[in-house]
């Protein structure tokens, strides 16, 4: 009988299935009401409500919910899948008051909902300087020229012919946490830390392309430029380009998302987000940096003495607890698993410590494999909460031995006008009622 019902469902034209979902009789209701003789289909609405009532009254199990007694939509109902309708709140979000327009702005990844090291492609944070261009891959070109032996113009098909590699790397905007330099401002993990995401990138090594064109001896720098309206451009040392940079077309097993530079972007592992130029269309090889607007007026850090640090590309070790956090409070004393991410642009995370008392005492967290260089790394730690107010922190150490600093230590050296490269320890205040707040300690 069970098989028969399923078979009947399968025979229905796909479009009709949602409307005429076959709901099986709830056995208990059936006997109770003495309705066994009636056809299941006629009873469907009544019995579905009954199953819901069971759930609402806390009685199921033993009852079956309606989705367990029906046949759902068939294959290719959604030829390109999407998340469950019940996780609709898990989306990129912006801070509307932060920027003059949405076209030159940023959105934040909901890290409070990210369960692994890979950020879902639809949730990868956005940063545009002139909006998200719609680039036709058939009409996209990559030009490589300047101090080279053989300038080259490549189509996407050409680029895909070169030997390919896949690597997992995070990308973080150096302005992540930039609103927190003066004081705790935003009561949200998504808005204090959501300008970092991580993906598996597939493409060709930049060194392969540079070998192909032949770099002249006095060359030292490479200008990477995008095809967006900003013609976003940054100067990069040739040494880094030859080391581990990638020119990628794949993101987590599918084509780059338009938000991340479709059809082609640069990946500069471990370096600040904006140098990972999206919609990449030009690489010029030269003998000095161009001092573009984005490496002078922007993405430079003003120090207390009025001087500004430029070319501070590296992302230094950083970590944050993603549970609990302001969006994910705790409920009552008991055992909790602290969860979080750590990352460093200078290599692997070697360990993460967590504190429950604002940094007086620390406990070693567990790192979850894989622990990859220049990638998000998951950590967990057990927390036996006694229900009293607590101050949660995490502190990352990377393979260089560098220890993630406190905000107080950073401020002592850099003041509060730097905007960028705030990699400080985050403090979450947990109140006795389990609510969580973004705070800073002296």
């Amino acid at each position, binding site marked *: 009988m069970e098989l028969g019902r399923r078979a009947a469902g399968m025979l229905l034209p796909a479009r009709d299935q949602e409307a005429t979902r076959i709901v099986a009789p709830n056995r208990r209701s059936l006997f109770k009401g003495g309705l066994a003789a009636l056809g299941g289909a006629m009873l469907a609405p009544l019995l579905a409500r009954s199953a819901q009532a069971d759930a609402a009254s806390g009685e199921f199990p033993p009852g079956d919910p309606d989705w367990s007694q029906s046949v759902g939509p068939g294959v290719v109902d959604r030829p390109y899948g999407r998340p469950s309708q019940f996780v609709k709140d898990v*989306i990129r979000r*912006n801070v509307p*008051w932060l920027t003059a327009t949405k076209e030159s702005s940023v959105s934040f990844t*909901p890290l409070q909902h990210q369960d692994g090291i890979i950020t879902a492609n639809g949730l990868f944070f956005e940063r545009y300087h002139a909006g998200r261009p719609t680039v036709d891959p058939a009409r996209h070109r990559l030009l490589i020229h300047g101090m080279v032996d*053989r*300038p*080259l113009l490549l189509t996407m098909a*050409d680029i895909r*012919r*070169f030997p390919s590699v896949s690597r997992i790397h995070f990308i973080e905007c150096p302005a992540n946490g930039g609103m927190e330099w*003066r*004081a705790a401002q935003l009561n949200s993990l*998504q*808005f204090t830390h959501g300008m970092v995401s991580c993906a598996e990138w597939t493409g060709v090594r930049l*060194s392969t392309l540079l*070998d*192909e064109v032949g*770099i*002249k*001896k006095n060359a*030292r720098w490479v200008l990477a430029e995008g095809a967006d309206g900003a*013609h976003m*451009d940054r100067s990069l040392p040739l*040494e880094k380009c*030859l080391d581990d940079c990638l020119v990628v077309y794949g993101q987590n097993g599918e084509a780059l998302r338009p938000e991340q530079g479709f059809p082609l972007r640069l990946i500069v592992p471990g370096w600040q987000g904006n140098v990972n130029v999206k919609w990449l269309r030009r690489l010029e090889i030269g003998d*000095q*940096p*161009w*001092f*573009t*607007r984005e490496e*002078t*007026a922007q993405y430079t850090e*003003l120090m207390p003495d009025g*001087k*500004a*640090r430029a*070319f501070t590309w*590296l992302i*230094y070790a950083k970590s944050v607890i993603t549970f609990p956090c*302001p*969006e994910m409070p705790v409920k009552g004393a008991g055992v909790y698993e602290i969860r979080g991410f750590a990352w460093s642009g200078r290599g692997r995370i070697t360990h993460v*410590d967590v504190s429950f*008392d604002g*940094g*007086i*005492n620390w406990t070693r967290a567990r790192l979850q494999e894989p622990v990859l260089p220049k990638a998000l790394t998951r950590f967990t730690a057990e927390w036996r909460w006694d229900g009293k107010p607590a*101050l949660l922190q995490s502190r990352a150490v990377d393979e260089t031995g560098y*220890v*993630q600093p*406190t905000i107080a*230590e950073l401020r*002592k*050296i850099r003041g509060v006008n730097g905007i960028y490269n705030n990699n400080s320890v985050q403090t979450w*205040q947990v109140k006795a009622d389990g609510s969580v*707040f*973004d*705070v*800073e*300690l002296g």
Partner: protein
Amino acid sequence: MSSSARRLPAAALAFALVVGAAVPASAAETADEAAQLAKSAPTVAARSDRVEHYGYGTVPSAQQIAGWSIAVLPDGRGLPPGSGTVDHGADVYAQQCAACHGTFGEGEGRFPKLVSDSKLTGDQPTKTVGNYWPYATTLWDYINRAMPFPAPHSLSADDVYAITAYVLNLANIVPENFVADRESLPKVKMPNRHGFILLDPRPDTADKECMAHCRTPDEVKITSTAEGKDLTPRTAGPLDEMQSP
């Protein structure tokens, strides 16, 4: 300060001081110093000997390369022929720029200000072309590649020169009779020309991996909280449209 300075290699510190505090004679000199940061000569020499090639793609024509080569260097390389006066710039600026940046560069709403008397050492300084940008060539380059915001890279070279001249005049960097062209722009002395430290001085903190009794309970004080500040957009439900503060 002292603890962080001690952590830096002595040579790196000395170099940072030279680049940051000394006054190089020319744009090219600073650029040379920056170029040294790459330290990539040995690698490059080895790679240029490579003879095998995949042979994919095509050789671009000189015209194709010229069309996309829009980047301008501080020494003026990359600037096209043409010129523009402050007067003509005022006209083009009024049509193309003032709606966002304000008639006198004061900025409308949250759009960028172009001029400011703000001191860079003050509280919440405003960084603008006048008090922050180190090179006038960068101004030409950026206007040309990215402006006007709704129609980037749509202005003639002459108009870009003219707007550049007008903005530099607004910032009191050049006189009213200034004519911007490929010869004059690299020679403009920007007020913050030597305001940048080109070698990353990090790591600049010396936090330790202390595990127990790292601070006394008295030292653990909350100095600020986001609680009660009405700045955080909602993180559940539809996207927030809050425009405060």
